[in-house]
């Protein structure tokens, strides 16, 4: 029951509906149904947000340390360096996302061109 484990053309779409659409809209619809009845700062919501944040952050870590495609052949030190300096630039610029992203990208491309 893996994504690429079936010869049928429709299987990936069903897979996306079940593992993607149901798994996300379930929470959106539940949010509508509850419609502001749960207190914003409640402990349960803090736990929920923390788990979701750590999970997505785990994805980010893997994307940098174990990337795929064209990024896979680049040196780990270059990717880590670009990400760390980019994140530092995000702070230095008063938390402007665009600065953090552009600095990391510029360093990565410059590093690849120099290799």
């Amino acid at each position, binding site marked *: 029951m893996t994504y690429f484990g079936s010869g049928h053309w429709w299987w990936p779409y069903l897979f996306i509906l079940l593992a993607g659409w149901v798994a996300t809209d379930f929470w959106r619809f539940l949010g509508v149904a509850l419609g502001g009845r749960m207190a914003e700062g409640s402990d349960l919501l803090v736990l929920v947000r923390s788990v979701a944040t750590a999970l997505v952050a785990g994805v*980010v870590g893997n994307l940098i340390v174990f990337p795929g495609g064209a990024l896979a052949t680049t040196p780990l030190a270059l990717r880590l360096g670009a990400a760390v300096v980019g994140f530092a630039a*995000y702070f230095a610029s008063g938390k402007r996302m665009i600065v953090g992203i552009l600095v990391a990208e510029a360093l990565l491309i410059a590093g690849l061109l120099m290799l």
Partner: protein
Amino acid sequence: MMETGETQVSEADGSRAYWLLRGMSGAISLPGLILISSFVGFAALAKAAGVTAAQAVFMTGVVWALPSKVVLVGAVAAGVTLPAVALGVTLSAIRLMPMAMALIPELRSERTPRWVLYALAHCVAVTSWVLALERLKDVPRPLRTTYYAGLGFTLIGMNMIVVAVVYALADSLPAPISAALLMLTPMYFVTSLWGSAREQAGHVAMILGVVLGPLFHILVPDGDLLAAGLVGGGAAYGWHRARRAIAS
């Protein structure tokens, strides 16, 4: 203007078409452009994972939230089975619930049918949500659903096109550019997650998650994301409780 008949559209509110267009043009903004660049990154990621163009466009339309899509593609590429992928995506999407809960009171008027709210909730993801909370207060209440439909569905449609275009172009790009595209998603996430965290526990969860993700990838390759989420998130929550206990 709004004291009488909260739910009636009055002359002074402007037409429905006007607010629909205002909502649609809200998609062309700095957050909207940053989102496009991260969808360029997502398309490159999906292509590297072996997902076809049509599947990636479909995924963009039905899942929409980028973190969940990245979890989905990551698990798909790792050959994880359906129930485990669904669990990972479900956990990554929990954050959508409080976001929808916070948005609904801003959106609805007394006469808004429930189904409209459910349909609009599909657009809830970080960018449309941030833009909506910032701008809805300037939109006449009876027309807020119209405005948000314009904003949300334009963002979705625009990025479905972006994904298709990137798939068509990706093979002709030089290697450093392809590599740079794959770097967009992680950089977009670290900066947007850090900025949108409600409490410091969110920052702790983020730092732990970034380190634990790769660590668990080596230790428990099949459950790395779940482990990183539960251990990192649980520890961040513990930190939150401990900090409050000390403060009080």
